C-alpha cells in the first residue's frame, strides 16, 4: 500500500488560492486537536494499525514493533513527542512509515487525511518560542485561510537522540547483520 495508491494526488493537491512559487508536498495527519504535515518524500507508506508488539524495557516513546513484510519496524507513540496524552487506537488510526537512509520508523497517528501541496512562502518558522524538545520537532507552521494552522514537522528528529534507553548491549544478532568484509 503506497501513498500514491492511497491518495488521489491529482485533485485536492493544490491549495485553492492562486498558486505560485516553490511548494512542499505534505502528508497531512491529525494528532489530538491539531493538524500536522510531513514531507511526502520522507514517507514510505501508510499502514493500518495491526498488532503492535510491545518491547518491555524499551524507551518510553516506543510503542513496540510491527512486522512490515518481514522487516521489524519500530513504532513510536507520536503523541509523546508533542506532550499529548496517549489516545486510543481507533479504526481511523494509521501508522506512517518514514525513512531516513537505511532506517525506517513508524509513527502512530490518529488519522491520515490527504496529500497536500503547501506553498513554502506560507510556512513560517516557529522561531525560538521555547527550546522545548518537542519544539525541535517542528519545522514550521503554515497558515491556510480555509482551515487554520498546519504544523509542519521534521521527520529527521524522530530518528535522533535517546536511541537506547538502557545501555548498549551487544545482541547476538549484531553478528548477523554485519556486512563488513574484512579481508585481512
Amino acid at each position: 500500500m503506497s501513498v500514491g495508491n492511497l491518495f488521489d494526488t491529482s485533485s485536492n493537491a493544490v491549495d485553492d488560492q492562486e498558486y505560485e512559487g516553490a511548494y512542499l508536498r505534505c502528508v497531512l495527519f491529525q494528532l489530538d486537536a491539531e493538524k500536522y504535515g510531513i514531507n511526502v518524500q520522507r514517507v514510505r507508506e501508510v499502514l493500518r494499525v495491526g498488532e503492535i508488539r510491545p518491547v518491555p524495557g524499551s524507551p518510553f516513546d516506543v510503542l513496540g514493533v510491527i512486522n512490515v513484510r518481514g522487516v521489524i519496524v519500530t513504532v513510536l507513540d507520536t503523541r509523546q513527542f508533542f506532550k499529548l496524552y496517549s489516545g486510543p487506537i481507533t479504526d481511523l488510526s494509521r501508522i506512517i512509515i518514514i525513512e531516513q537512509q537505511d532506517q525506517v520508523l513508524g509513527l502512530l497517528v490518529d488519522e491520515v487525511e490527504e496529500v497536500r501541496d503547501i506553498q513554502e512562502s506560507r510556512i513560517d518558522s516557529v522561531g525560538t518560542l521555547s527550546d522545548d524538545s518537542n519544539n525541535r520537532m517542528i519545522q514550521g507552521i503554515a497558515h491556510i485561510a480555509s482551515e487554520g494552522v498546519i504544523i509542519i514537522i521534521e521527520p529527521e528528529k524522530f530518528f535522533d537522540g535517546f536511541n537506547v534507553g538502557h545501555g548498549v548491549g551487544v545482541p547476538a544478532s549484531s553478528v548477523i547483520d554485519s556486512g563488513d568484509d574484512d579481508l585481512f
Partner: protein
Amino acid sequence: MDEDILQDFLVEAGELYENLNEQLVELEHNPLDASLLNAIFRSFHTIKGGAGFIGVTPLIELCHRAENLFDKIRNGERQYSSENADVILQAYDSVGVMLHSLQLGERVLEDVDPVLLAALDAAVKGTEMPVSAVAPASAASVKLKLPDGVDMDADISDEEFEALLNQRDQLITHEPTTKPVATTSPTAVPAGLDPDGEISEAEFEAMLASLNAGKTAQESALDAARAVGVLPTPSAVVEEVVAPVAKLPAPVKPNKLMNKPSEEVESTVRVDTKRLDEIMNLVGELVLVRNRLLNLRSTLQNEEIAAAVANLDHVTMDLQASVMKTRMQPVKKVFGRFPRVIRDLARKLGKEIDLEMLGEETDLDKNLVEALADPLVHLVRNAVDHGVEMPEDRIKAGKPRIGKLVLAAQQEGDHILLTITDDGKGMDAALLRRKAVEKGLVDEVTAAQLDDKAAFDLILLPGFSTKTEITDVSGRGVGMDVVKSTITKLNGGIDIYSVMGEGTRFNIRVPLTLAILPTLMVGIGAFNYAIPLTAVQEIFDYDAAQTNKIDGRMMVRLRVRSIPLYFMREWLSPSTHGGDLDHSKVVIVNVGMAVIGLIVDHVRGQEEVVIKPLGTKLQGAKGYAGATITGDGRIALILDLPGMMSRF
C-alpha cells in the same frame, strides 16, 4: 582517486593477497613448482597493475620488485632460498599492511622501508643481502610518479606501464642493457598504436619527461624528441617504432598476455551480502505464506489447490536451500592463513611442525567463517606454543622429531565440527586443578571433584594461564575465555580431549548458519518469546512446594542443587506482581557459567527461527538478541540471556 575503482581493486587484491599467503608457504616445500611460481608472479603482477591504476606508488614499488624476483626464479636464474623467502614474506606482509591502510581509508601511504626494497633489489640481482647504499638511495630518489596535470583516471595500457617501470629500473641500476633501443621504444609505440591507449600524447610526453629527469640533459632531450615524434624523423626511430609492433603479438612474454583480464572467463558475480540478506528475508516471508497456504489446504479440501500448494511447497524448500548456499563459503577461507601462522611461529620457537588440513572444502556461513577466524588462530597458536614439544624433547619421548598438527572440518547434520589435534605433550589435569585453585578460580573441594575432562575445561575460565612467563606468542591468559565466549555467541560449543604424552584435541561445534536459530518458544503473558535452544537444559512444572526463599531470592530444588529463579512476568512488566503460577513452567538455562531457572507461563515447543534485527531505537536494547516472525505472522522477541541477566 576513483573510490569505486579503488574498492574493486581492494577486493581483488585482497583475494590475491590471501591466496599468496598459502602459495608462498607451499612454495617453500616445492620451490621448483613452475605453476606455483607462475601463479605467484601473476598475483604480484596483478596487484601492481591495479596499484598503478589508482596511483599508489609504494605498492607499485614493492610489487614490481617482488614480481621481478619471481620472474628470475621461474626462469631458473634465482632460487627460492629461505633467505629469499624471508625477504619475500616481508614484502608480502608490507603489501598486506598497505592494502589494510587503503581499506581503512588512508589514501596517501608511507614509502616502503628502503631496507626492504634494497633487499629485494639485491635478491633480484642475486647479490648478498645488504648491498651498497647506492641502490636504496637511488630507489628513493627516482620515483615513478605521474606528473602533475596528468589525469589519474586516464587509461594506461599494460605495456606502457610495464615499459615505464622497466625504464625506471634501468635508471636505478645503471646497468648497461644490451639493447637499449628495444627497451625504450615500447613506451613510445603504444601511444599511437595500442588500441587500449586512451592516454593523450601530451600526457604521455609529460610522463616520460618526469621519468627521464634522472637522465642527462642530452638523453632526455633525445627521449623527448622520440616521444613527441612517434613522428618518424630519424630513420633509427622508425625502426624502433616498427620493431616492437611486430613483437607484440608474438608469444615473447606469454605470461603477460595471459594476465590480461579480458582473456579470463568470468563465471562469478560479486554480490553485496546485504543483498543476499534481503533475499534471505524475502524467502523467509515466502516460507510463511506457504505455511499459511498449507494450513488452508487442509481446511479447503480442494484437490487442485492441494496439488498447486504441494508444488509450491517443494519449490520454496529448494529456493530456501539455494539461497542459503549463496551465503556459504569454504572453510578454506579460515584455514588458508594457518600454514603461514604455523611456519612463522614454529621458526621462532625452534619447533618443527607438519600441518595437515582436512575438509577444507566444507562450506559454512560467511559470517561464521569470519567470526571463527580469531578463535581458531588462537587455538592453533596455543597448540604450537604449548602443545607440540621441542624436537629434542620429542625424540627423548620416543616420538618423531617433527610434530604434527591436524586441522579438520566436517559437516555433522546441521552442525560443523572443527577439530584441532596436535600430537604434543597433552595437558596435565592435576596441574590444571592446582593452578585453578592457586588462582582462586575454584576452591579445593570443587577442584578435587572435577574429572579430567572438566579439569581441561578450567582453561576456558577467564584469568587462567598455566604459563608463568608471558610470551608474545600466547600465554597472557586472556585468550581461551575469549575463544569460549566467541564460540558460545555463535551458538556453538567447545570440547577438549587430552591424553598426557599423546596430544590434545579441541572439538568445536558450530551451527551451519547463523541466519537460523533453533529456539524454545515460550509464552509470557500474552506474548511469545524465543530462548536460544543451546542454553536450555531442562523444563519442568513449577511447584511452589519445591521452592525456598534463600537470602531474599527464590530458589528451586533440582535434584541435589538449588537454582535461582527468575520470574519472567515480573521482569517483562514490573507492575504485575505474583499472580497465578499454578501452570507455570521452569526452564533451566545456562548463562555463561551459571545455571538459572526462568519461570514462564507456557512452553510452546521448539521452533527454528530467522533472526531479524529489532527496529530503529531498539537495536541496543538489552536482553534481546533480535526478533522473529512466527508461523502465524506475529512477532516473537528472541531473548539474549546474558543481557537479560544484567537487566534483572
